[in-house]
């Protein structure tokens, strides 16, 4: 397992994954981790207070997501699951858009995929891996692999979890990416649990080893080590952009909270396990490292704390201020070219709603 920062925050080197990173960049990674966790705790609170219908927490996976997200270049494209709040943060997607989905005012969040080079959240497990493959086929056809132009050559990051490795779509995506040497990085966050099913029910080999059978490299990285995730993903993306084909990264991490706010993990996993992983927390680890190097001065910590609090306040206010969608908007954008049937049904809904208002 690739690790560049151990659980005590001690920096290690790895010959295959050299990482030169400035003190400033280290502090920015810390800021990312803290802010993303703040989004998560605020969203959980909003759900508990009835402001959101559901929330899928990323707690514990911040290191994996910020590491992978900060490895991306602007032209790269991301295909997320529904838990990629940290990657979305790195793509400059306003978390308010994500909360729209979980509040139920939109189906998939309101960001423009092409403006952020990140698709909308995908809820059906594994579907997005095939979309990544198709997008990468397009990248190849556009001549944006291996051209040597670092501003043009493009990689695709396919995010998924341990559960998705059992899906046919994901395995087909591996086949296609290998057969056509596509510029896809398969970024699997193995958070050990697919709702209540442990990874042992998904695989009898470590997940990263599956790549060998498909014919491309697989690597396991400490998913709670943001530096290792950054270095490993950066190299895989470089390989993809330069025409060396796909890589499977297994970011070995842990889902600290329930699957979603509707889940009750006490029914299927024990507190000892959770406590063991809490000791490997990705934020604590970087904090220890920064602290040991004297990089955590009060001014920096205050600025992060203040930014974090402002973010939470803004999310709360924005969530509560979200306008209720017009019922008639259900009929929008079903087709590029509206059908007569839908126009008629829309009219029926409007008339019925109007008739209720008249009745008062």
């Amino acid at each position, binding site marked *: 397992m690739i690790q560049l920062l151990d659980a005590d925050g001690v920096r290690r080197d790895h010959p295959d994954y050299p990482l030169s990173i400035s003190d400033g960049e280290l502090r920015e990674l810390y800021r990312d981790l803290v802010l993303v966790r703040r989004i998560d705790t605020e969203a959980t609170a909003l759900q508990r207070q009835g402001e959101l219908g559901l929330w899928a927490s990323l707690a514990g996976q911040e290191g994996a997501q910020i590491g992978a997200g900060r490895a991306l270049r602007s032209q790269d494209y991301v295909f997320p699951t529904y838990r990629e709040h940290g990657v979305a943060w790195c793509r400059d997607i306003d978390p308010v858009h994500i909360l729209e989905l979980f509040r139920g005012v939109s189906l998939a969040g309101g960001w*423009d995929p092409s403006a952020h080079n990140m698709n909308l959240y995908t809820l059906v497990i594994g579907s997005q891996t*095939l979309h990544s493959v198709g997008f990468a086929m397009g990248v190849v056809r556009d001549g944006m692999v291996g051209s040597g132009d670092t501003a043009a050559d493009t990689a695709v990051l396919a995010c998924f979890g341990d559960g998705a490795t059992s899906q046919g779509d994901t395995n087909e995506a591996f086949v296609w990416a290998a057969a056509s040497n596509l510029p896809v990085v398969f970024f699997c966050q193995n958070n050990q649990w697919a709702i209540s099913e442990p990874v042992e029910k998904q695989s009898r080999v470590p997940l990263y080893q599956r790549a060998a059978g498909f014919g491309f490299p697989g690597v396991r990285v400490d998913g709670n080590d943001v530096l290792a995730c950054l270095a490993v993903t950066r190299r895989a993306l470089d390989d993809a952009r330069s025409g060396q084909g796909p890589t499977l990264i297994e970011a070995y991490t842990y889902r600290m909270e329930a699957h979603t706010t509707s889940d009750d993990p006490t029914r299927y996993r024990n507190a000892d396990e959770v406590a063991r992983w809490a000791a490997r927390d990705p934020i604590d680890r970087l904090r220890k490292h920064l602290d040991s190097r004297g990089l955590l001065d009060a001014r920096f910590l205050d600025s992060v704390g203040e930014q974090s609090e402002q973010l939470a306040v803004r999310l709360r206010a924005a969530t509560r201020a979200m306008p209720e969608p017009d019922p008639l908007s259900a009929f929008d954008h079903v087709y590029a070219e509206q059908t007569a049937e839908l126009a008629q049904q829309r009219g029926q809904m409007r008339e019925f709603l109007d008739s209720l208002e008249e009745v008062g």
Partner: protein
Amino acid sequence: MAAHIRGPEPVSMVQALNEALRSSLEDDPKVLLMGEDIGALGGVFRVTAGLAKDFGEARVVDTPLGEAGIIGAAVGLAMRGYRPVCEIQFDGFVFPAVDQLVTQVAKLRNRSRGLLSMPITVRIPFGGGIGAIEHHSESPEAYFAHTPGLKVVAPSTPADAFAMLRQAIASDDPVIFLEPKRRYWDKGVVDWTALAAPLHAAAVLVTGSDVTLVGYGPTVRTCLDASVVAAQEGRSVEVIDLRSISPLDTSTVVESVRRTGRLVIATEAHASFGPASELAARVQEQAFYSLEAPVLRVTGYDTPYPPSRIEEDWLPNMDRILDAIDRSLAY
């Protein structure tokens, strides 16, 4: 490139489809074809014959054998600005792709509030009557027509095959394009330069006054044949080719039923919850007082598609259609 068959002589539906693909590839560099065995082989029905040679493997893509992969990859290609035309080799092989079609292709425009477009065409040879083995003769249109976000069409002639496939490919909506494989080798004259009728408009092929007979895809030929026989018995049958199953051009059928008072619908799809049932429901909603008889459905039965030795009795053949016309007129 070869436009050699675009002449006045009759061509088969396979040739007409091939020309539609060729001209779409010529017209739009973002069009690309994907499917199993569509390259060197030209597809199991030869619909893509010669295209890989003329346009290259990057635009006529022999894919791995995974239907979910074909459609899932088409989603990504569409997001990258391409216009994929997918071939599913046989109707009965589409089901592994149904997840991607229903949960992704059909919904992405809506869930992105119009920011994403899925200009994907999915060609599927469908229907029976060719003596095939299991899974090669099915009519899965109801699954797709029941799915908001998809459009479903089926040509019945070489001329429509050419025009409608070009329109489907040019459409910014995903279109399930059902090719009646029983009619692949029927020939017809194609006006290659004609202004095409709207993709989703039904066509009145024969005007009549006693009963309206509606089909699409493979049953249109059978309906036309039935109308000739019925005419010999003094019955004036109006024949309508629906052409599009979703959206469904209800008004053309309703207008006809208002004149004839009777409606018989012939499809190979299973009876229950099928396209014929939907059309019957709409006609009784919109033309109740015009009806002189119950709307009758002549369809595939609600059984798995049978062994080929008995398929002619299972299909909506001419005798079954004539019998339904008799029953309708007996009311």
